[in-house]
Every structure is written in C-alpha cells, then in structure tokens.
C-alpha cells in the first residue's frame, strides 16, 4: 500500500467519494461536489474563451490592427454578438434575434448540402448490394441483411398507408431489427457505464490508495 502524498490526488479522491455517496442517498457532500464541478467547469471554459478567443481574435486586433476597416468590422460584429445579452432586458430583448438569425443562416447554409451528401446519399449508397459483396460469403450475407433491415425498418415508419397486406409482415420484421438495435445500444450503454466506474476505481485503488499498480 502506497498512499498518495499529492494533495490534488486527495482532493480528487474525496470529491469522487462525495459523488459516489449519492448511490446511498442524496446528501450535502454530493450536492457540494456537484456545485463545485459546475462552477469549476464554467470558470475553466470562460477563462479559455477569454484568453484563446476574445483576446487574440477581438481585443488585440481592435487595439493593434493598422487597418481601420478591420477595427470597424470587428467592433460591429462584437456589438451584434453582445445582442445575445439583451434577452435579460425585456424592452430590447427582440435584438437577440439578430445574432440568432445570422448564426442560423450561416449554419444552415454550411450544413444542409453537406449533410444531405454525408447522411443520406452516402448511407443510401452503402445499402446497395454490388457484385463486390459476393466475393466472400460473409460480406454477401451482411449486405443482404443490411438491405433487408433498411427496407423493413423504413416500412415500419411508413405512415401513409394502412399497415395491412404485404406491409404488415415487412414492418413486423422492421420491429425486430429495431429491437435488435435497442438491445445493442443497451449492451453498449452498460459497457460504457461500467467502464467509467472502473476508471474511477482504478484511480481510487491505484493513484490514491496505491493498492493496485
């Protein structure tokens, strides 16, 4: 046993135990650790936004740029950005729509054409069965299963026709594919949560208490 002497390791260990105490019941230690986390996370982010974004991209150029036009542009953009804070002043809160509109316009313009290509066209292409899939029996089998799975699942979400005739059994197969998907997601979720717990125990037993290597 080789207990840590670093005070930061002790602080991290005590806070970890404080958070875990919630498993027993809600208590002031848990709440203190939770509030501390939120506060520190926000403070950390604000510091980095100030030093890495606002200072080099706004304050420094405004103060030192030799180009007057650059300064005007930056100040104008900063004022539009500051409109976000007007939502706290009811009389002029409508101004918040201006930066939101600019962001939405920019975001949609940049996203929509690329997202259609990446999320729809490429995914549709991946469901098409080609001759290359039949080079090996397993790739052929998976390609067919994916093709059937997509058709069956999409038919389950096809609400424009009554679910009878051929659509009924196909959509039922779609439900099976969806359930398999949910099962896979749940299994992975269990693995994820256990992994995080293992990480904390590795820290407590190893870095803090020195019981394990």
């Amino acid at each position, binding site marked *: 046993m080789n207990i840590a002497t670093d005070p930061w390791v002790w602080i991290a260990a005590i806070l970890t135990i404080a958070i875990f105490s919630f*498993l*027993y019941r809600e208590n002031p230690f848990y709440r203190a650790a939770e509030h501390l986390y939120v506060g520190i*996370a926000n403070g*950390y*982010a604000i510091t*980095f*936004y100030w030093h*890495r*974004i606002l200072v*080099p991209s706004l304050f420094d150029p405004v103060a030192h740029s030799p180009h007057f036009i650059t300064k005007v542009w930056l100040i104008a953009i900063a004022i539009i950005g500051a409109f976000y804070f007007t939502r706290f002043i009811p009389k002029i809160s409508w101004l918040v729509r201006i930066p939101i509109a600019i962001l939405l316009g920019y*975001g949609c313009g*940049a*996203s929509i054409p*690329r*997202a259609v*290509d*990446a*999320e729809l066209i*490429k*995914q549709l*292409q*991946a469901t098409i069965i080609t001759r290359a899939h039949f080079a090996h029996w397993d790739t052929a089998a998976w390609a067919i299963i*994916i093709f059937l799975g997509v058709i069956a699942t999409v038919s389950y979400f096809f609400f424009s026709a009554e679910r009878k005739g051929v659509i009924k059994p196909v959509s039922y197969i779609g439900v099976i594919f969806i359930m398999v*998907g949910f099962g*896979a*997601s749940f299994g*992975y*979720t*269990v*693995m*994820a949560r*256990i*992994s*995080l*717990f*293992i*990480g*904390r*125990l*590795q820290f407590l*037993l190893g870095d803090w208490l020195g*019981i*394990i*290597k």
Partner: protein
Amino acid sequence: MTPQDSAARPNLWTRLQAIDRRWIYLVIWIVVMVPLLFPFPIKPKPTTPVEKLFSYIDTMPAGKALVISVDFTPDTRAELQPMIVALLRHAFATGRPVGVLAMAVYGLGLGEEALSQVTAEFNAHATTHEDSVINGEDYVFWGWTTPPLTVMLGMGERIANVFPVDYYGARTESLPIMRDLRNYDDVGVLVTVAASAMPRSWIVYGQTQFGVHLGCGITAVSAADFYPYVNSGQFVGMLAGMKGAAEYEQLVMERMAKNKMDWGLRNRGTEAMSSQTSAHLAIMAFIIIGNIGYFATRRRKS
C-alpha cells in the same frame, strides 16, 4: 398458518422484484473491484473496425500525418484516454508526424496529459535525436479554438490560419513539422476521439468538402450510432468504448514488440478488461434473474 397467510406472504421472486437498488450497487462495486485487486489475464481479440483503423494508420504513405482530435471531456476519460495514448504510441512507433487538437475546451488538459505521458515513454528510451519525440518536429499540439464548423472547414484551407499559435504559445508557422502539414492534403487520417456527435460533424464538414480520411474512437454508448458510418466507409475504422481501446492496445503492443520497443508499458484499457468481463456477467445474471422473477410473479398474480 392458514393458506391465506401463506398466499399473502411474499415469496423469493416477489422480494427480489422489490429489492433495494443499493444492494445492486454494492454487488457491482464488489464485482468490479475484486478483479482489479486480483486480476485474471484477458487478451481482447481485435474486431474488424479496430483492425481496419490500425492497418490504415500502419500502412498509410510515409510523411502523411496522424491527426487526433480530442473531442471529449474528463467525464469519459476512462473510456477514451487509453485510445489517445494507444494512437500516439502507434504513431510515434511507426515514425508518423502527429497533430493534436481539441474541439472540446475541457479536452485540452487530456490531450496535453496523453502527449506528456507518451513522449516521456519514448524519450526515456531514446539515445539519439532521431529516436526522440520532439515538440514542433515530430508532433504539434495546436490546442483549441471555436466554433467547430470554422475549424473543420478552415483546416481544409490552411491549418496555420486556424491555429496561429500552438497550445504552448509558439507561432505555428515557425514549427518545422508545419512545413509538411499545411492542410488536409497532408493528413493521412484524422481520428476523432469523442463522447458526442462530433464525429458526424467531421464527416459532414471535413470529409464531404475536403475528402479527408476519418477514423473515430467513441464511447460505447454511441457505438451503435456510428456503425453505419463504418459500414459505408466514411470512417476507415472505429474504436468503441474501453474494449475498443483494449483491442487497439493489443495491436500496438504487437507492433512495438516487432519494432523492438517491448518496454512493458501499462495499458489501462487492457487492465480493465477482467473487471469489465465480471461486471458484464453480473449484469447478465441480474437481467436473467429479473426476468424469471417478473414472469414468476406475473403467473402467481394471474
């Protein structure tokens, strides 16, 4: 005891249905902790998506860089940090230039921690300048900037414009590594290690417009969401959760042993696999017992 009393008294299954969840937590705690104290060896067999990513990095043209985007926060460190460490070891063991950036501001410290650890491991065994792993020559840590959309699109034009200074405050353009690392054309593969939907953004903005090759390391929770992108070839490979990290660690260990770099390094992902396995067995037992109890009590009620 009358027959009515016997019927009213809850049996084992009924009591199990109403068990205090804190007992479950205690069992999981023990089941995870005991294998950490008394580990039994488990050697994870690499799955296809992990092998694909490893092979891609292993065989990409000389001079092409591996870029790692740290897109997660400390809450998922246990799952994702071993991936970064393994990727860095692989890159340095095969002499690849490395660029690291963070899309999450909280990922900065994690990226720095992984770089410090792995460079120290390699430099401890270096005897010449060529063997050493040097900041600015063999790797660059660009740091963080925002918004992600601008970063992803901007890196396709010129990386030095997006990150004028690196994490340590040096002018990016002045670094020797940046002479051959101008934009996505010089990137062999960009691996996004994320606990969010960021890998999807990399596909939409980085890949669709500029054609950069992508890989991903993601938390197990989101693994099912990203398999379609591996199937479509949009990701060259994928590491899913701590198990994915452990599989990659195995492949890197083999590669390093081949390169005579068998230094006995710790592999956090692999070390966790015995606890992971026993916890999974316990949860499977809970699910089976819970279902038997549910059907037994339902039959009793009917």
